[in-house]
């Protein structure tokens, strides 16, 4: 069996050779393409094609392919099975179609329609590729003239910038720096409290107050200021019910813990002499 391939100008169709089914299958773009080629072979309008005859031709093709142990892609076989089913239903006297299933004629019509549509789209593709194409059939200006770009520069500087520049420049030249009072080395209580609040939830169980001081406030007067402010901040937080404090004896380390933490006995279990909660 030979199946003549349609030759399109732009299509690279592998012409099927006699007896060489491998080449033939390779030349088709899937079962629908094969069916369309077979349909064209009937030399009638695809709208009026005999689906029964078409199914026979397709099944014969598949048979031949099987006989020479040609491996066919699964979708060719699925189509074959479907066509065999359609054929059986077309041959049998018209019965009522099973529930929700279209009649055999409807199925045949649908196949015909799909073949027509593929055919129409192929024709459209050929027409499209046959159009006059830029740089193949028609040409634009070969030596386009460059457009000269002129930069329109605008400045964002405002009077504010001008005055700032003037005031700071003049002030710097004349007086050096503006007056800024020297800050005493005091850690503000508000600052200490904010810091502690940030640490809530990160404080591990009972922690010594001295271990909670900021690193940069470690020496001399700075440390004393930090300690005092942090203690006051702790007291405020304890008052608000956010932390618990305890101290074993006067002047000993004060321990802090987050009240949200599960309660465990303090460093000295049971006795909480200095509890300030």
């Amino acid at each position, binding site marked *: 069996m030979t199946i003549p391939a349609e030759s*399109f100008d*732009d*299509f*690279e*169709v592998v012409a099927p050779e006699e007896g060489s089914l491998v080449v033939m299958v390779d030349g088709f*773009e*899937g*079962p*629908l*393409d094969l*069916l369309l080629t077979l349909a064209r072979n009937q030399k009638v309008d695809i709208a009026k094609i005999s689906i029964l005859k078409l199914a026979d031709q397709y099944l014969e093709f598949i048979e031949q392919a099987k006989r020479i142990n040609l491996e066919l*892609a*699964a*979708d060719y076989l*699925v*189509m074959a099975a*479907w066509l065999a089913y359609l054929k059986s239903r077309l041959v049998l006297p018209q019965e009522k179609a099973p529930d*929700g*299933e*279209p009649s055999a004629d409807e*199925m045949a019509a*649908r*196949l015909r329609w*799909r073949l*027509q*549509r*593929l055919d*129409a*789209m*192929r*024709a*459209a*593709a050929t*027409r*499209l*590729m046959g*159009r*006059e*194409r*830029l*740089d*193949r*059939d*028609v*040409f*634009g*200006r070969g030596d*386009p*003239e460059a*457009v000269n770009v002129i930069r329109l520069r605008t400045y964002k500087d405002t009077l504010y910038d001008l005055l700032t520049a003037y005031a700071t420049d003049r002030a710097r030249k004349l007086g050096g720096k503006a007056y800024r009072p020297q800050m005493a080395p005091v850690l503000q209580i508000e600052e200490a409290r904010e810091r502690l609040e940030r640490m809530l939830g990160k404080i591990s169980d009972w922690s010594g107050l001295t271990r909670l001081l900021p690193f940069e406030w470690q020496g001399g007067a700075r440390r004393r200021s930090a300690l005092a402010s942090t203690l006051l901040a702790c007291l405020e937080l304890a008052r608000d019910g956010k932390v618990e404090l305890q101290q074993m004896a006067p002047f000993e380390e004060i321990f802090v813990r987050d009240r949200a933490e599960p309660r465990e006995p303090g460093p000295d279990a049971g006795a909480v002499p200095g509890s300030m909660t």
Partner: protein
Amino acid sequence: MSSVAKMIAKIEDQMEAEPENPLTTANPEHLRMVEALLFAASEPVDQKALATSLPEGADVPGLLAALQLLYGNRGVTLCCVAGKYQFRTASDLAFLLRKEKPEQKRLSRAAIETLAIIAYHQPVTRAEIEDIRGVIMSKGTVDTLMEVGWVKIRGRKRTPGRPVTYGTTEAFLVQFGLESVNHLPGTDELKAAGFLEAIPPSGFDVPNPSDALAPDEDPYTGEEPEDLATGSLNLDEA
């Protein structure tokens, strides 16, 4: 009378016969400007860009119509592509110029068919293309078309899986000399025949190519979201 004289006489006749002829009403200085602007440009130019370059109040559509008449039967003609205007050599002179340009890369048959389907059916999903062609699209087909610059991803379809939809680009219109996608050849016939309608819901239908995955073929579960989306669409439609 020589044919050049005839050509000029013909234009004159037109102008006398129709006082409303664009050539009669066009401002000749503006005409020169539009001519210069379009001649100099390497790309098609739209009316808005022309209007900004021309003196205020210039009748751009009228000027373009006049130029189109003036270049009607010349070696260079004024074309409207992708809604923009460009001078191009007359198509009947292709034989003269073709040899000077290298032959363009040939597309595979599958790519050409896919391009046509995308052009006529856009926005279209991969599953819909496969339904029309009756075959699973090989991975590279759309990639090739996108690489050439003729096809782009337009969006996603509001169906389960939200598959991406494909459409053609402006470069496609420019390449094929089309004013817009509505000017594709034969659209009316295809529409009348119902071939451009959305794919009807398939009941017990001709086997869908996507349902028939070959044993040696991987389902579309690729890392690209578009593949995944198209894959799930088929499941939903099956």
